[in-house]
């Protein structure tokens, strides 16, 4: 009797007739993970049994797993370098921007619940470990009139290979020569100070749990968890808050001059209303997909993402793609064979 039940259970799990027809595996960035997961759930609900299983293991993970061939497509906030693309011999990687997002400095300071202002030099100083206390003169200068405690600053960064880290360090490299020479930009860097959290989720979680801490996360992670985040001074000297409009403004220039392979950085963008720490994020799709069903599914999803999917961006605190970029991407879909 018991063995019969056991066998029945085994069979039920091995041959699930009720399960989905097609499963596509993807992995990568945590930056856009919330909206990707929403998209994949919506897409599954409206398109029969298409299951796109997305694991947010970080941009570095997405790139590596795509290279190793263990996922059908990847996702990254950092465009792949020529070297990384060159490593994949079986296909060419097509970059498909999906949304725009903004990175915010989120913090948890005892006694301070409002919005703090950060100038680029202050942010660099904090993450370099030169500014160690919340009531440092640099912070006081940025925030006249705010009562900042004399507590030590606990920096939280990513412990995994992250496109979010790339965007953050790319920005810091642009605004701070010291940062550029000492640390540089990349998906995983040699952090001068700080604790490591895994994924955007881990950093947000760590900041939330640790008083007097500061970390960098994609806007939605701070918004969804009701965590305060700061405004940053942009190239034009204006303190701008990350939002649909300010992130879209940052992409304005890039939209006009988008390179053919869509690899571009929009940190520290010019413009009075531009949010300085903005970025595109990309899906990394192989240009050759052998399995016909998978190919068509992915192409169909991309079309959906560029049209219907873009409607979800505002509510999820991302910004949608500029129209000229969408048009160009639609054309690139044809390149997937």
């Amino acid at each position: 009797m018991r063995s019969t039940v056991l066998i029945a259970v085994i069979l039920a799990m091995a041959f699930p007739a009720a399960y989905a027809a097609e499963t596509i595996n993807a992995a990568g960035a945590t930056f856009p993970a919330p909206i990707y997961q929403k998209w994949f759930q919506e897409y599954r609900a409206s398109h029969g049994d298409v299951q796109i299983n997305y694991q947010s293991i970080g941009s570095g993970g997405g790139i590596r797993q795509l290279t190793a061939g263990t996922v059908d497509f990847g996702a990254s906030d950092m465009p792949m370098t020529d070297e990384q693309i060159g490593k994949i011999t079986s296909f060419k990687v097509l970059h498909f921007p999906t949304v725009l997002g903004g990175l915010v400095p989120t913090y948890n300071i005892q006694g301070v619940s409002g919005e703090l202002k950060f100038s680029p030099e202050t942010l660099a100083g904090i993450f370099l470990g030169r500014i160690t206390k919340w009531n440092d003169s640099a912070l006081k200068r940025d925030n006249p009139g705010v009562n900042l405690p004399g507590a030590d600053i606990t920096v939280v960064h990513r412990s995994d290979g992250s496109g979010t880290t790339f965007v953050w360090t790319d920005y810091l490299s642009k605004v701070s020569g010291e940062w550029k020479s000492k640390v540089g930009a990349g998906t995983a860097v040699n952090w001068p100070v700080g604790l490591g959290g895994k994924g955007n989720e881990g950093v947000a979680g760590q900041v939330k749990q640790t008083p007097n801490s500061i970390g960098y996360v994609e806007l939605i992670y701070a918004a969804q968890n009701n965590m305060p985040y700061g405004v940053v001074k942009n190239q034009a000297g204006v303190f701008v808050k990350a939002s649909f409009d300010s992130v879209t403004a940052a992409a304005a220039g890039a939209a006009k001059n988008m390179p053919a392979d869509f690899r571009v950085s929009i940190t520290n963008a010019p413009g009075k209303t531009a949010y300085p720490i903005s970025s595109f994020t990309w899906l990394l799709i192989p240009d050759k997909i052998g399995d016909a069903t998978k190919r068509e599914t992915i192409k169909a999803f991309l079309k959906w993402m560029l049209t219907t999917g873009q409607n979800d961006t505002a509510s999820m605190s991302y910004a949608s793609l500029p129209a000229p970029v969408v048009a160009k991407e639609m054309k690139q879909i044809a390149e997937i064979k």
Partner: protein
Amino acid sequence: MLRIWRHAVNNVMLSLTGICAFVTASALFFILGYLLWNGGKSLDWNFFTKLPLSAGELGGGMANAIVGSAKVVMLGALLGVPVGFMSGVYIAEFSGKAMANVIRYTADLLNGVPSIVIGIFAWTVLVVPMRHFSAWAGGFALSLMVIPVTLRATEQFLGQVPLSLREGALALGASKWRSVATVVVPAARTGIMTGIILGVARVSGETAPLLFTALNNQFWSKGFGEPTASLPVMIYTHAISAYDDWHRQAWAAGLVLLGLVLVANIAARMVLAKGAAGQRG
């Protein structure tokens, strides 16, 4: 004078050791209590029946993780138990001393390999060639941890079967393998079963070997060749996130996992105790 001092020392030290014992024993109660308190609040029917929802949305569950865990653990057991058992039989019944030592040493070595390193190994030999994260790889990794435990339990309990029983069987004309299969193994079966249950229970709570083998899955995984959700990995990803709802789920999952593991352990030990008593009686 000296006597009073020595007696004082005696009383203090004895009490201290008692305190040590109670402190360490109460660690378990503390853990259980914390999980019951936080997990009990969060355990609902959704947890067992629904799939995880995207971050921030309420009402999801971990149904796929429960099934996924069952899948990889079962694979681990199906692959590991026969190997461990047969090897244990070999050492205890058929091999010479030298071979037995070699195999025993190897099994102990395998047992001592950190679980994360087992994960690396499974990734190298299964995930990369298959170009797929899968329950197969996860099950394989777990089986490597089941083998040494099963092997030792088999060897130990087979060894405890009295000589008289073996010789009786042989005297009746049974061949060696017959006597082992029909007399010796059944005599040791309680102990061996206990060892297997304990070993399987242990791997069901392992996270590290699954991190880069079975990976994880938001949805149901078809068959065994897809990335598969599992309770320990889900607990980990949910606990380190910033979403309160995910934290609740992590507590609930922790409670379920701990409950299963503890029940298996307690049951196994009770069976062993009864079996041993039965044999002695």
